[in-house]
């Protein structure tokens, strides 16, 4: 299974995302923001970083890139798309997911191992988790405060489209503790924390068993492979 990873100018987690895909058993395919050709990939990851220097608004210019426009077109036909951090911002700016992301309420960039609750396991990227499972993956962002209108929030909650919620600490002031969302169809998922940084023992968050042994992020990439095999 080929999973594309788009590199924008300013992207910095593209190699980590490629490595995560490889460790999960998929074939990562590097994609370039200026190309419309997505090389017939079976899914796409929009990785973290600072696309176009975060100019205008985080993710705003990347949302207009030729590769993103093609992702938007194919996502509407069911292509699985995962947006991580800056990728989540791109998904919001390209209207694949509703709402917006603003500067953290405390105004600080934050970097921590973040506990999350998996609230929806019916998406292409979360089907291997258990309902209400608690996972820990790294979070690092300056503009991760999720906001939406009261109507949008009500709709998201009613349709079970909140996929991840922050546990213990809300690190950025996100409404309803929202850490990640999905679209109506469940093929597009965006979240602020970084699953690709928790995929290999020795490099992930600390767990009760051993330091840096957390690999909760791997299931994201294994989930999409399972979803693709079943589709």
């Amino acid at each position: 299974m080929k999973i594309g990873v788009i590199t924008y100018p300013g992207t910095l987690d593209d190699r980590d995302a490629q490595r995560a895909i490889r460790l999960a058993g998929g074939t990562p395919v590097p994609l370039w923001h200026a190309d419309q050709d997505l090389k017939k990939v079976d899914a796409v990851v929009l990785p973290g970083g600072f696309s176009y220097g975060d100019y205008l608004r985080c993710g705003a210019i990347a949302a207009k890139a030729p590769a993103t426009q093609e992702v938007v077109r194919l996502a509407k036909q069911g292509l699985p798309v995962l947006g991580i951090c800056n990728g989540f911002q791109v998904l919001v700016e390209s209207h694949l997911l509703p709402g917006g992301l603003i500067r953290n309420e405390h105004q600080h960039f934050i970097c921590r191992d973040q506990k999350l609750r998996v609230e929806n396991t019916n998406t292409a990227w979360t089907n291997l988790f258990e309902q209400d499972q608690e996972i820990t993956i790294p979070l690092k962002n300056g503009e991760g405060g999720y906001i939406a209108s009261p109507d949008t929030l009500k709709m998201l909650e009613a349709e079970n489209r909140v996929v991840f919620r922050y546990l213990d600490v809300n690190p950025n002031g996100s409404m309803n503790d929202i850490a990640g969302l999905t679209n109506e169809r469940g093929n597009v998922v965006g979240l602020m924390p970084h699953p690709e940084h928790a995929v290999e023992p020795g490099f992930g968050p600390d767990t009760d068993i051993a330091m840096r042994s957390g690999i909760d992020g791997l299931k994201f990439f294994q989930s999409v492979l399972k979803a693709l095999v079943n589709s």
Partner: protein
Amino acid sequence: MPKIIVEIMPKQDLLDPQGKAVANALHRSGHPEIVNARIGKRIELHFDRDITSEDMANAEKLASSFLSNDVIEDVVAITKE
């Protein structure tokens, strides 16, 4: 050089952390009379010819679709200079 100026502000009811930080700093530096500060954006679109009404209409479209995000921002003014 003729230009269209688009002014964008964070929505009124939205927390503006940047403005809040500046307001706090102003208070600390002896300006309690300034009760709040809000920070927005001014974007200049430059032209090498006279600006037509069509250009203004285009700028309005661009301002609402790309230059601002209506979830978090308001376009408060589009002017010609």
